[in-house]
């Protein structure tokens, strides 16, 4: 395990995270279900986490890892709030489809 940093070029992590990030974006674009969009956003955040950790590991600087904690904190808070919002909407319109939410426009 010690030699991961030598065996795997750092750029691969970069590419992997970017790919993951883009999959997250695709998910947000692709789906209409608010919950799944929320999950895709989590995916995006996780790609960033991965990136940060890889940078941190490769540069031997633990700041990046600490930062990941904050991202987790925020992600948790975000999810809590997001799901609460979702619940309150679901009570009103009985749907999690974001396309239902189009009263406000133009």
């Amino acid at each position, binding site marked *: *395990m010690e030699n991961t*940093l030598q065996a795997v070029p750092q750029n691969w992590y970069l590419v992997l995270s970017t790919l993951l990030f883009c999959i997250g974006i695709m998910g947000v674009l*692709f789906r209409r279900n608010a*919950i799944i969009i929320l999950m895709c956003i989590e995916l995006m955040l996780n790609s960033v986490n991965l990136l940060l950790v890889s940078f941190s590991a490769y540069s031997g600087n633990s700041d990046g890892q600490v930062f990941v904690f904050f991202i987790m904190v925020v992600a948790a808070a975000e999810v809590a709030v997001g799901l609460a919002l979702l619940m309150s909407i679901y009570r009103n319109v009985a749907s999690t489809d974001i396309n239902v939410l189009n009263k406000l426009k133009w």
Partner: protein
Amino acid sequence: MSLYLFLTLAILTIISALAVVFSKNPMYSVLWLIVCFFTIAGHYVLLNAQFLAIVHLIVYAGAIMVLFLFVVMLLNLNADTEPHKSNLTKIASAIAAGLFFVVLIASMRATELGEFNLPNKTSIGFVEEVGKKLFTDFLLPFEISSVLFLSAMIGSVLLAKKEKK
């Protein structure tokens, strides 16, 4: 060895991520996401961030995903309730995301991260190291994030509280 491990994990990560996006049933999506989180935790371990890997699992798989599952079950969402986007939008979003990926990679195309030296400290991912950092350098953000939690807490209660109109 670790290269193969990385590749395996990476491919798994990507597959599970894609599965999150493409699963018709929200429940599956949730489950795939959990898989994805596990693979990411694997990466953390590969990168010597053991403590973070554990925290990651606890927070994400243990807390956040449970929350998700809980909501999905509560709202009784399944494949039938999932509204479908038209194919055009689907293709468009796939292309857009793909293009975006290409653009991102292209803008980093010349990224040479320089001569890589093995860090003299391998313990940066250990709890001790991270903890020290968190309570010294990052003390303020740590404390400030409590405000965030407070706010989110009040907010969630406020929003989800069941009350007569």
